[in-house]
């Protein structure tokens, strides 16, 4: 009995020592000069069904690291899983702030972002978003320490509205789940679409079967539908759309995050023929993109999603700014200036940051079609918007 308890004591002591080592090591690395690595707080969703998105984000970001350096500056990623729960993410962020971390990225959902960003900014940290760009932080509530390297959420849907104009659709039915992002999506689409909206159907957030809505679409006989259903609901929707036979007569238009590379795998043939608004696809024709896709496939033996590409570009943006201050992010004004200049080669092509520190970039109309080897890929049809910012930039005042 005594032997057991003493060995347990040894284990407990070792465990405590390990915890202490971690707690003590973190501020030490953050306080010392550029010789030791700059720590980046990386909170993302690695578990739950959406975990594959976090994996792609993490792997895409790490692909940009060259021997543990970004822009020639040694960096250390402190990765935490938020399980898609804003409260978990907030706790992780608070722990990191206390350990002295000043630079954050990684979050992949708008609701989680809303929990993390205010705390980081209050503590004087810098946040660079690599996926969500919710409208709340893009207008009046913009902040000089908050950057979005991906897109402003609405812009994607506005690009879809422009795409619908180009495709000549006159009568369109809109479908989205009845929650904030769903409503925002449809508002964004309506902002740029010139035709007539003959039906606006709100689905339940956790809905899995869309037969009722599809029957209504059939009875309305639109030129096309625009639908925004992320994750599992999007897979269900596409499968049932194809199964109902509607896909033959009514084309479907989506924002590209309603059908990523992994979802194509889960929907099978149903993705064939769908149109999507996008800022990048694996088929984007520029050398940086081709090199990225090849490197990602080689490193992880799978096709990168747009999330991986966003993370990769964000990493390179951060790298360009770290280089400018030689890894010393305590020179915050210079670090911010360097981020704002965005001197790096983006995989998506042209990229700059607008007055609200959200991207100004090109948007494309893309189509899911079978390539020569029979795989479904997202091909670029044409550019629909050039140097496109967002609707909120004018309301943002950064001194």
């Amino acid at each position, binding site marked *: 009995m005594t032997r057991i308890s003493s060995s347990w004591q040894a284990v407990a002591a070792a465990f405590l020592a390990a915890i202490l080592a971690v707690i003590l090591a973190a501020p030490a690395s953050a306080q010392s000069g550029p010789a030791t690595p700059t720590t980046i707080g990386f909170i993302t969703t690695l578990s739950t069904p959406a975990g594959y998105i976090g994996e792609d984000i993490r792997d895409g970001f790490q692909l940009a690291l060259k021997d543990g350096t970004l822009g020639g500056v040694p960096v250390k990623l402190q990765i935490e899983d938020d399980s898609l729960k804003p409260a978990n993410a907030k706790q992780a962020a608070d722990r990191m702030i206390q350990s002295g971390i000043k630079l954050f990225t990684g979050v992949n959902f708008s609701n989680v972002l809303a929990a993390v960003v205010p705390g980081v900014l209050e503590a004087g940290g810098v946040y660079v978003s690599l996926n969500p760009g919710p409208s709340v932080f893009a207008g009046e509530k913009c902040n000089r320490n908050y950057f979005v390297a991906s897109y402003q959420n609405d812009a994607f849907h506005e690009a879809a509205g422009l795409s619908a104009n180009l495709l000549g659709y006159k009568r369109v039915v809109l479908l989205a789940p009845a929650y904030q992002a769903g409503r925002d999506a449809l508002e964004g689409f309506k902002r740029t679409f010139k035709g007539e909206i003959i039906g606006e*159907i*709100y689905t339940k957030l956790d809905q899995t079967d869309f037969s*009722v809505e599809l029957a*209504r679409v059939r009875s309305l006989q639109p030129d096309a539908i625009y639908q925004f259903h992320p994750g*599992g609901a999007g897979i269900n929707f596409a*499968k049932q759309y194809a199964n109902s036979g509607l896909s033959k007569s009514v084309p479907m238009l989506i924002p590209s995050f309603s059908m990523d590379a992994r979802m194509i795998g889960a929907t*099978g043939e149903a993705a064939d023929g769908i149109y999507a608004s996008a800022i990048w696809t694996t088929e984007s024709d520029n050398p940086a993109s081709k090199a990225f896709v090849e490197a990602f496939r080689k490193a992880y033996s799978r096709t990168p999603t747009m999330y991986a590409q966003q993370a990769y570009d964000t990493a390179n943006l951060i790298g360009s700014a770290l280089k400018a201050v030689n890894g010393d992010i305590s020179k915050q004004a210079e670090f911010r200036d360097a981020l704002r200049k965005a001197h790096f080669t983006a995989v998506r092509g042209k990229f700059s940051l607008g007055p609200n520190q959200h991207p100004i970039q090109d948007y494309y109309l893309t189509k899911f079609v079978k390539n020569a080897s029979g795989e479904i890929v997202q091909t670029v049809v044409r550019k629909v918007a050039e140097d496109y910012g967002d609707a909120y930039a004018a309301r943002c005042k950064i001194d």
Partner: protein
Amino acid sequence: MILLIEQVLNGLQYGAMLFMLASGLTLIFGIMGVINLTHGSLYMVGAYCAASAVLQSGSFLVGIAAALAGAGLYAVVIELAVVQWLYRRDHLYQVLATLGLILFTNEAVSLIFGRRPPLMDIPPFLQGSVTVLPGLDYPLMRLAFIGVGGLVAVGLWLLVNHTRLGMLVRAGADDREMVSALGVDIRRLYTLVFGLGGLLCGLAGVMAAPLLAVEIGMGERVLITTFVVIVIGGVGSIRGALVGALLVGMVDGLGRAYLPQGLQMLLPPSVADTLSAGLVSASIYVLMAIVLLVRPLGLLPARS
């Protein structure tokens, strides 16, 4: 008119799925007095087993066998390992234990099958649509779903009303203590009923897998609706589960189809959309509240 018939078919199909889940749940709840939150997980296990079996073998029949075996066996394992120790305990213990089992099952499934959800296509002989009426093409897979639901209803009716096992099940639903006092091995009966519930979940899983995304957490989503069905129908009654499932299926389907249109005629679009989205989500709970007001034990309770 065509639209109405199509929506009624949609309601029937949803009802068929709910019935497969609810009939097992109502037996477990009614006879054994166990609140089994794991019921939805059994449905998920069935769908995962079916999808990966079809992926490996390419045959839908193998998928059905795998789903039934997987969900049925898992149900028996759960009953023997966890649930049977909790029959004499308070409902709270059962809720805690089966809630824990949901978390356990979700993690176990993602460990075994991987995080990437398996894809299951509609089998070739059920692909495409058939013309039900002139001008109305309806997907064959959904018709098959309704058909299987009907077969399950008939099968359960025969099982419950014309076999010895069914007699014990009915007796158990009426008075557990008396059945046990008459010398029936109530333990074995419980295990059998739990396994039967698992089988039905597996069947629902394999039928739903080609239409819905197979993913972690798909069971929890349908679980609450299933509880609504058995509360409306009356706990412990298969006929009640059938009536409840069809009622919920219809109210949900027709509500989603016609409520937004009806409200749009009365109110400005911005108000109507928000209001109808909320009302549609709440419709089955409103139905449940009305039923409970009129008949507190449900429509067709086992013990009237």
